[in-house]
């Protein structure tokens, strides 16, 4: 059995220089338990590997039932010089939400 992160959590992406940060906020406690266990740095790096050089760092905020992923080298050199249409990487939250997790 697998489920998409989209079923378990909501997410927002932010930018600083060439780094994207993508939050993952669980809808409830069971979802939080799955995310905390399964949504690892390795799994996130695999999902972003064709876009980002990495590394990926995961921070936990249990009181908010949230994870914060900091993904380096993800924004085409940085917002101001990137050739990408979405230079800020605003849409990258939905790449996170598209990840399949075993449940």
């Amino acid at each position: 059995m697998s489920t998409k992160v989209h079923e378990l959590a909501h997410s927002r992406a932010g930018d600083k220089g060439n780094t994207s940060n993508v939050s993952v906020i669980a809808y409830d406690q069971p979802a939080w338990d799955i995310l905390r266990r399964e949504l690892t740095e390795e799994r996130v790096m695999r999902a972003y590997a064709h876009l980002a050089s990495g590394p990926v760092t995961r921070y936990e905020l249990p009181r908010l039932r949230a994870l914060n992923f900091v993904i380096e080298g993800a924004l085409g050199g940085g917002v101001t010089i990137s050739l990408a249409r979405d230079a800020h990487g605003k849409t990258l939250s939905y790449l996170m939400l598209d990840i399949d997790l075993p449940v």
Partner: protein
Amino acid sequence: MTKTRVRIGAGAGFSDDRFEPALELAERGELDYLVFECLAERTIARETLSRIKDPETGYTPYMRDRLRMVLPACMQAGIRIVTNMGAANPLGAARVIRRDALSLGLPPPVVAAVVGDDVTEIVRAHPELRLLDTGEPVETLLPRMAAANAYLGADIVREALARDAQIVVTGRVADPSMFVGCMLHGLGWSYDDYPRLAAGTFTGHLLECAAQVTGGCFADPGKKDVPDMARIGFPYADVDADGSVRLGKVAGSGGRLDVATCTEQALYEIHDPARYITPDCVLDITEAEFEQLGLDRVGFRGTRAAARTDTYKVVVGYHDGWIGEGEVGYAGPNALARARLSEQIVRERLKLRGFSYPEIRVDYIGMSSLHGMGAGRPEPYEVRLRVAARSPDKKAAQAVGFEMRTLNVNGPAGGGGTLEALREVIGVRSLLLPRHLVHPEVVIEERP
């Protein structure tokens, strides 16, 4: 006069933000302060170039429209305005704001300009300063530098308010610091009271993007719905002298303000949640939690802060060549194959004309322009080819869009809707500057 509670509203979250919510807050929000945050990283460098061409400009383009809209209501109700819309010319901005107030028939307001964030000459004198990302000295960027600006803190905003300014207009001030400056002044907080600075900085962080905490960037139909999005209201915060905070928005405005919207905004553009560095403190939100206090009413507790660092962060804007781009669309049978053929043709034509590029990007819009070409993507019915390239040479950059346009007649079958664009690139890099080198100052504009 020190109060026991202040209410601070967010009038804009970026330079091109909507206008109406600020007026709604000014007229019906019962505010003490209205803060407009309108400076992206590269805005000041761009506005510096405008100011060099015309010394009367250099503030953000919408500044006058925004302020003329809210000034009558704000001056009537005694709401004080703090904004970084002064960008590269806070002094010029202060002059024009005062003139605009007079032309609206208002009594002449005291306008304070905050200067000293422009550290271009200081950076030029210190080529050994190291860039934060690569660790290389800034020396190599100096010949191409357009501007360098330090993120000033809440202390200088407080100083401006203490001089009875009705309007405080700044260049680069850290986004949360504009809000914290209002709290320092209005509530008489000490600049070394870190528990209060923590709560104030977190509040500023939640408010600085305006609608992003009241339902903007949030709706996902069927999953996370937001009521009345067309009229999303902007947030305010009620801050007590003891540092407790409740966020709210004007009754009857659109959007939603709850634990979920606050949590998304709490982590927006945060890296290590234990160390969010501002000019005022180093904020730690790892123990923070939100509480729903009522409809569109949220409080929080658990923020902490460590002492501020002994440096200011500086953004260096520099000329980084040109980006040229173009697009063409295809639909129906074999659309993707025709788009791919166009890509090959354009690459070859640019080569035949003798142009080469340090970086070319190719997007298949509808398929790979946002999340890249992941494995197993289905072929779309419609696809737009986009080619973009960077070059130090304007002609080479311009040629990219030109060759995309020529596909109208010289490309594969059924191509249409071509577009081309060319822009000058202002890159930004960051460094840290010791505080003792920076001298923020308040200048009161009193000329008629």
